[in-house]
């Protein structure tokens, strides 16, 4: 079992309901392949540093996944086909830091974790 961090950049003109669909779809793929989504973070609309497929902004979704590494193959296979996505990246990590959220200003879900990050910054 590996600890994986997975981030997705979606197009700027995707609606909120579409974003939810995307997150549900990929988390279902993870669970199908004997994986487990430990945390999902929605970083929101962020400015891209450069144009990607004529997009100035991107919707960032971040997953923390625990599961076998064969899961990545299936995930990225379907992401390559997806026209709503601009980029995707998986990183293998030794340890999760579930508290730190560098984009907490635009986060909706976690209220508890944002408090923790404030404490750390002080």
């Amino acid at each position, binding site marked *: 079992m590996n600890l994986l961090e997975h981030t997705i950049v979606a197009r700027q003109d995707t609606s909120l309901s579409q974003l939810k669909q995307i997150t549900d779809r990929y988390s279902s793929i993870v669970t199908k392949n004997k994986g487990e989504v430990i945390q999902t973070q929605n970083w929101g609309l962020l400015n891209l*540093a450069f144009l990607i497929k004529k997009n100035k902004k991107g919707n960032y979704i971040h997953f923390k996944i625990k599961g076998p590494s064969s899961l990545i193959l299936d995930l990225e296979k379907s992401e390559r086909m997806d026209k709503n996505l601009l980029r995707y990246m998986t990183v293998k990590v030794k340890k999760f830091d579930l508290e730190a959220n560098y984009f907490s200003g635009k986060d909706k879900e976690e209220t508890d974790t944002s408090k923790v990050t404030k404490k750390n910054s002080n």
Partner: protein
Amino acid sequence: MQKKRNNKKKSQSNFAKLSIFQPNKYKFKKKCRLSIKGAPVVDYKNIKLLKRYVSENGKILPSRITNVSQKKQRELSLSIKRARNLGLI
């Protein structure tokens, strides 16, 4: 004429102060900020930190300018490249 000669002598004496054989007072080397206790974690999500080690054009700054240790520089360059891939930097 005499005045000019005097000036020359003065300038020479100033140069002597700036010789290579300076006392150790003037030589100082900054320590690496990232390997101190309680330093921030180098991560591709921590854009605020990464932007300090990137030039205005988005190039990675060499460690001889930023005084980062060799180990941390390797971590930095990896995480900067990851952030670039996501379009964050």
